[in-house]
């Protein structure tokens, strides 16, 4: 058994003068305060990576800086799936009795700490160094390839994809911490600058500064209880050249494993927190996970299904697409928002019932997947 006893999230966007460690510390302090725990009570630390300040021992760099001497600590690297992979590991660590309170933390000054070109170049290295990167492929290009194929096989259009950007922006407009607060329409997405077709600027998440943290504990520390009901992973490939067919991608495998581990069905889910690095990522994952039928996710967006008041509220903070993407902390914001929703603390964004949430993270080019069910306990 494990509980998420505290969450912390900074605003995303520009944090001029803040280092990755500063942003990690800010989020970690917020998570500790939320859990009502002191530094001495944290006996495990898991942290992500920083492309701005790479280090071979980031967890102990952070532990020393923040002032914790943990019994267990290391960094984890699974790209965009890192936040949920760390949460899964923390869940197993506390469940196995290795640690009592594990701090999961990530933060990066990715926007102000390096140029946009440097960020794009750093991320493009998830591609194959001999067979892909020399072709000038970028992360948007890897996902652009997946997008044209997905659109070809399932009849999805660029306008369909644009709906996801519009939805995430609408959600971000209601969150003061989001990077973007200007409403957009499908026409704005369609008219935005081409990046790697069919993906245009507004189909892509931004580069952000920000940090996020949670505490995973063996015992509840407050009245509000959010329990990790169960989770699973799947890793089918690293490089898009080596990816399996669209019908055999890892999201379907990891959700099947997570459903088996928890005994939960898709119909049990009341809130969805799904990785959305690009509009195509969100569209595909929703369909791979079974939250929409093949080729029908966009129609569900148009029908209000994924809105705050819809049947399946989705990324009510605005997701990576509009809350922002600071690396590992980016997708951790999805979990923070899910926690706020489940504990009735989402203010003007509060949904009716977030008793059971599905979280899903994706790293690489749909390479690494983590599916996780959270359950509210009273």
């Amino acid at each position, binding site marked *: 058994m494990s509980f998420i006893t505290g969450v912390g999230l900074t605003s995303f966007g520009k944090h001029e003068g803040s280092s990755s460690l500063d942003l990690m510390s800010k989020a970690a302090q917020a998570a500790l305060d939320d859990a009502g725990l002191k530094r001495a009570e944290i006996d495990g630390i898991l942290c992500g990576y920083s492309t701005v300040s790479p280090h071979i021992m980031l967890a102990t760099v952070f532990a020393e800086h923040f002032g914790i001497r943990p019994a267990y600590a290391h960094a984890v690297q699974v790209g965009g799936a890192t936040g949920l992979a760390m949460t899964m590991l923390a869940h197993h660590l506390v469940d196995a009795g290795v640690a009592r309170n594990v701090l999961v933390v990530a933060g990066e000054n990715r926007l102000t700490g390096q140029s946009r070109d440097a960020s794009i170049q750093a991320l493009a290295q998830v591609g194959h160094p001999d067979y892909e990167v020399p072709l000038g492929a970028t992360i948007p290009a890897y996902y652009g390839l997946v997008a044209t194929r997905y659109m070809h096989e399932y009849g999805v259009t660029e306008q369909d994809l644009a709906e996801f950007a519009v939805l995430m922006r609408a959600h971000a407009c209601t969150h003061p911490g989001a990077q973007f607060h200007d409403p957009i329409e499908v026409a704005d997405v369609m008219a935005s600058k081409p990046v*790697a077709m069919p993906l245009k600027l507004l189909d892509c998440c931004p580069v952000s500064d920000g940090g996020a943290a949670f505490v995973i504990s063996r015992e509840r520390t407050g009245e509000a209880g959010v329990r990790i009901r169960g989770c699973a992973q799947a890793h089918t490939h690293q490089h898009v050249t080596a990816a399996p067919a669209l019908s055999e991608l890892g999201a379907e495998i990891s959700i099947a494993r997570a459903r088996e581990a928890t005994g939960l069905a898709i119909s049990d889910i009341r809130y969805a927190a799904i990785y959305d690095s690009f509009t195509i990522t969100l569209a595909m994952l929703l369909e791979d996970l079974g939250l929409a039928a093949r080729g029908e996710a966009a129609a569900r967006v148009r029908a209000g299904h994924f809105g705050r008041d819809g049947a399946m509220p989705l990324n009510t903070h605005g997701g990576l697409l509009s809350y922002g993407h600071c690396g590992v902390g980016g997708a951790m914001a999805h979990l923070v928002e899910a926690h706020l929703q489940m504990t009735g603390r989402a203010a003007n964004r509060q949904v009716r019932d977030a008793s059971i949430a599905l979280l899903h993270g994706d790293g690489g080019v749909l390479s690494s997947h983590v599916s996780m069910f959270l359950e509210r306990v009273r």
Partner: protein
Amino acid sequence: MSKRLADWTRGEQAITYQTCTACGHVQYFHRAFCATCGASDSREQRASGKGRVYATSLVCRAATPETRAHVPYNILLVDCAEGFRMMAHGENDLAIGDDVIAGFKPFAGKLVPFFTKRK
């Protein structure tokens, strides 16, 4: 195992692939073993260069000065006749399902495979 054949990743105008003599698995990324069964005696050959377009993405925003000089450039995934998939460049108007044939072009200081429509 015989000596590795030079291919475009090493500046040669060629695309190569490996076929496992034990299990028949075909792989594009060169390794000293078969990724399916682990056998170490894969047969390495030059590919015909014939294939069919699996996916495309026209890159309009590049991240380095060298690659920026080439935008827009079309990145492809091509299913090659010999049974492996590869990433390459190609004509900007290629579409999924087009039958294509490989040539080679300089790109950002290197040689890259460039596919054109097969007549």
